[in-house]
């Protein structure tokens, strides 16, 4: 339960910072004839940030595992032989075998796919909902804003883990793919509110800018102003929130699978493996520690990446 609260708390911070993260004018022009853009400025800062490179490296590594797990291990994670239960490292199994006699390392590598799939797709759906809702509420204001803000308040008031338990019980007997998409949908439906608030506040800031007034005077319609002028400015804070949310969605998926209501075998998930390793920790702790490390590093990588990008886009914080 507390996992989600923390996630909410970290996102709250980003939401608060996101408000102030309005696109400022570049205060120090680099080359005299070519003023740097906000993105260019941010990139200059990011390039010199070791945390950014470290977290990016981790993210790329995990993404590679998800796409091509065969590159990292030659063993089949589902090839389990009980006779080598908790056996030490041998052959391709560099970290030994777990309680069921499966290759611990291979299972951790193959677990990246489900985690990243859930994280990325949930973040994508979250992003779409948040952009649409935030844009409508922020741009039109008035009763549209009032209604949408109340909806956000209500969804924000639902305790995430409890709601997920109730929702996912409905698919407890369904197949592998249905469960996967149920988890993605549930996380996205309960998790879009913070991002929507961030988008809304940055749209409200952008709406009052001179270039929007200029565009309107030139005869641009609402659709064009929203799409061409406001969206690019609302995107940066949204991407930051979504990067952090991606990490927390991965943590949430693992938590649900750990409880036994998220993904289930034969899907390979870090949450399931952590639960299995926990039960037999007295005999051998490696099957617990390996998936735990993979999960913690992945979640941390996304949170640090989001933090680094936010710091680069919001120099006022330093």
């Amino acid at each position, binding site marked *: 339960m507390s996992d989600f609260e923390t996630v909410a708390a970290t996102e709250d911070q980003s939401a608060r910072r996101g408000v102030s993260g309005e696109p400022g004018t570049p205060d120090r022009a680099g080359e005299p004839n070519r003023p740097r853009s906000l993105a260019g400025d941010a990139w200059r800062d990011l390039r010199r940030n070791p945390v950014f490179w470290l977290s990016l490296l981790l993210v790329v590594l995990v993404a590679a595992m998800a796409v091509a797990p065969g590159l990292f291990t030659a063993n089949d994670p589902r090839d389990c032989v009980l006779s080598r239960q908790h056996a030490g490292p041998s052959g391709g199994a560099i970290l030994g075998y777990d309680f069921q006699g499966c290759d611990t390392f291979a299972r951790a590598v193959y677990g990246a796919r489900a985690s990243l799939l859930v994280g990325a797709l949930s973040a994508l759906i979250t992003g779409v909902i948040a952009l649409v809702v935030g844009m409508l509420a922020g741009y039109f204001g008035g009763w549209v804003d009032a209604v949408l803000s109340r909806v956000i308040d*209500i969804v924000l008031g639902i305790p995430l883990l409890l709601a997920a338990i109730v929702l996912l019980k409905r698919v407890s007997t369904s197949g592998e793919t249905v469960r996967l998409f149920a988890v993605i949908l549930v996380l996205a439906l309960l998790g879009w509110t913070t991002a929507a608030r961030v988008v809304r506040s940055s749209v409200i800031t952008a709406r009052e800018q001179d270039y929007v007034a200029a565009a309107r005077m030139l005869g641009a319609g609402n659709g064009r102003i929203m799409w061409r002028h406001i969206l690019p400015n609302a995107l940066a804070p949204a991407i930051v929130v979504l990067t952090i949310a991606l990490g927390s969605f991965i943590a949430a998926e693992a938590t649900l699978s750990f409880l036994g209501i998220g993904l289930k075998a034969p899907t390979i998930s870090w949450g399931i493996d952590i639960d299995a390793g926990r039960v037999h920790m007295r005999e051998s702790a490696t099957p617990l520690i390996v998936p735990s490390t993979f999960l913690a590093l992945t979640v941390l990588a996304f949170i640090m990446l989001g933090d680094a990008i936010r710091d680069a886009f919001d120099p006022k914080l330093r």
Partner: protein
Amino acid sequence: MLRFILRRLLQMVLAFFGTTLIVYALMFAGQGDPIQALAGERPVTAAQRAYLTEKYHLDATGVGGFFYRYLNYLGGLLRGDLGQSLTGRQIGDILAAAWPVTVKLAVIAMAVTILVGVTAGVIAGIRRAGVFDHATLVLTLLVLGIPTIVLAPLAQYFLGVRWPIFPPTAGAQPSLWALLLPGIVLGSLSLATALRLTRTSVSENLRADYVRTARSKGLVRRRIVGVHVLRNSLIPVVTFLGVELGNLMSGAIITEGVFNIPGVGFNLFRGIRTEDGPLVVGIVSVLVVVYLLSNLVVDVLYAVLDPRIRYE
């Protein structure tokens, strides 16, 4: 003030009906055959089926039937009658036995949060950009980034099994000592957030005009920080702690499950594992009410604590 509380109460009543309706609709409406779901894999005789249909008014169909059963469930919830779990125990009795343990655990977690989190936050806020500040920022990032399902089993393994400093699990009647490690694990998350909140709040207030005034009046630094800055800085922290206490009360599902603590979260954990539908719904319904109530208390507390906030 009274008007604000009344309005807030009214909002809560609406939210209560809304959330219970959603919980109820999702759990029971539209599922294939509730009687078969209740019985699981076992066959149901015609007599049992007739008895259950009569008992739960399952013969009424359509919207009217659904609302009839919903109001039935709501009435039971309000009277404190949560029905029976699949194992035949009264859910109310299970919760009554579990609640004191959960409260004990929550109080330990809260104490850890306040003692360590707020103190360290104040120090980091005063010495901003110092070594201590940077160290706490990195540490809190780690704590915030590592999920409980990693933190709890690893703490149990390293501090309970590998180097047996703490008892690895709590028993049926857990002592305070056995609850200490789970309390620290549970509190570590709110600790990290409380620390960051205190730090930001203190360092912001240190730049305020009234601090400069106090300093130019010649007050010693200890008095400025201890009396003037702290009083203003702790308002958001107290609010946050209030919300957290509500969350902790609603049971730490993972922590209680891992450390075998027979609290509310543990019973929910077991209910999910054993597919005990009525137990899960009963506990979730009560937890939602606890959650709504704690939010209400915090909102009112906020208005009392900070007179600058007006709700009109």
